């Protein structure tokens, strides 16, 4: 193939006259990806935990609400959810609220919408994993907790959840890795995260291979860090004798 390689382009100042190099663009994109991944992951853990617990409660309405949430958000394509949050939701709100949202600085809008879309979507998957973690416990544990005089909340807090969360650390690690890569969908609404910056780099320099190789390395580094982080969490929370370890 007839391709003109030029790695030096990364160190050139950008063509727009702003005081950056193209490598600087990639660095900004990387930071945006990291920030988006972390914020969305925290939201996903919070929402997913609430819904996951709700789906295992004795209360029928709580279970139905959890099921409805999972069915809705796990079954609609992520990119559609981004567009709905970004384009449709502000139009459904009362005009004053919608206009206020649309008047915010664009980058605030992109970031907030991306965290919401990504967090709520991934939350539905975390929910199912936590439910599986809780349901994998022997039924006797819940009954024993209640028989000891603990309230339902205390049973969850001190008996069920500590073991359930430890059980699902491996699938949660996968989920964390997936959310870091799903964050690339945010570029479709305009957030210049890592893949968005790569696209921009291609547009400006016409050097697609250099750009995408850099971006690939960026995601590899991020994913390596996540694997190490989750490995650290697993070791810190390890309880000898539990889960056959």
């Amino acid at each position: 193939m007839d391709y003109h390689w030029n790695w030096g382009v990364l160190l050139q100042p950008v063509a727009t006259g702003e005081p950056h190099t193209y490598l600087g663009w990639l660095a900004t994109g990387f930071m945006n990806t990291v920030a988006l991944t972390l914020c969305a992951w925290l939201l996903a853990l919070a929402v997913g935990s609430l819904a996951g617990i709700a789906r295992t409660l004795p209360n029928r309405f709580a279970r139905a609400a959890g099921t409805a949430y999972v069915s809705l958000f796990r079954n609609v394509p992520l990119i559609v959810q981004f567009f709905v949050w970004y384009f449709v939701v502000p139009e459904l709100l009362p005009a004053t609220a919608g206009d206020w949202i649309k008047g915010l600085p664009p980058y605030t809008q992109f970031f907030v919408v991306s965290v919401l879309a990504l967090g709520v979507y991934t939350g539905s998957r975390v929910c199912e994993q936590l439910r599986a973690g809780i349901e994998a416990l022997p039924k006797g544990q819940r009954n024993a907790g209640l028989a000891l005089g603990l309230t339902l909340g205390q049973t969850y807090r001190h008996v069920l959840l500590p073991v359930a969360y430890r059980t699902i650390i491996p699938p949660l690690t996968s989920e964390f890795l997936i959310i870091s890569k799903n964050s690339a969908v945010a570029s479709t609404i305009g957030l210049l995260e890592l893949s968005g910056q790569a696209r921009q780099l291609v547009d400006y320099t016409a050097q697609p291979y250099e750009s995408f190789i850099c971006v690939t390395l960026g995601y590899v580094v991020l994913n390596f860090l996540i694997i190490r982080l989750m490995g650290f969490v697993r070791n810190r929370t390890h309880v000898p004798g539990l889960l056959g370890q």
Partner: protein
Amino acid sequence: MDHRLKAGSRTAAIRGGVALFALAAAMATAWAAETPLTGTLKKVKDDGVLVVGFRDASIPFSYYDVNQHPIGYSIDLANLVIDRIRQDTGRADLNVRWIPITSQNRISLLQNGTIDFECTTTTNNESRAKQVDFTNNFFEIGTRLMVKKGSPIRDFTDLKGQTVVVGAGTTSDKIIRSLNADKQMDMNIISAKDHSESFLTLSTGRAKAMMMDDALLAGERAKTKDPAEWVITGTPQSFEAYGCMVRKGDAQLKALMDETIAKLETSGKMSTIYHKWFMSPIPPKGLNLDFPMSDTMKKLFAHPNDKPAA
């Protein structure tokens, strides 16, 4: 005896025929040897397949009609080029495959061989010319603004502190960012994925103005419910020429297309095609873009060239 004689003369006749055929074949080979086909044209002759890129939402250059077939000003040109390729390679059975492309992937798809050429809305500029070859230019645009009727924004100086939407990776994107950095205009710039999304950003009120090639602005306006609601305004920030892209070094295809385009432009055929797409009602809604030919375009048609934009 008689019988054998007859048989012998028949054999001779057959031999003669074969010899004639061989001679003809040799002549044909000799003629072909004079101009051995290379690049895309050779591939087309060997395989009978040509792959052409198109844009699915660049009214009126290249977009889908109601049956999801690509149509438009640039597509008319591409079809004339395809006719010429069919003639020159002698493949009347040429199988033409149309592949949708975007601003972001058009260069890569051309380089890796997914498409053989594209005539859409690609500005012929120097950074792209390092990766691909451009044919003779076939359109000239100016980059301008579109705003809602009654908006206080009349020109680029009014954009201070406003939110502006541009197509990601377009020349407007570069120009508006440079303008923002140079003049410290404190604009918020949104880079949208494609023209439709740019217009959606403008029409939902997220952006106060949209910057794009004037002909494309007229195209977006023609798609709306109420075209009179939108105004094209502002001094053009740049003039640019669209060219077709072919793979770098695909000299025979480029020569064929250069010649085809130059002939169309000087013969007045291209002006007829212009009239069809810019001055008459066009699909899907039968709207008239009403976009008269500029002087720069008349100049281009008088003197076809493949010069990149300044």
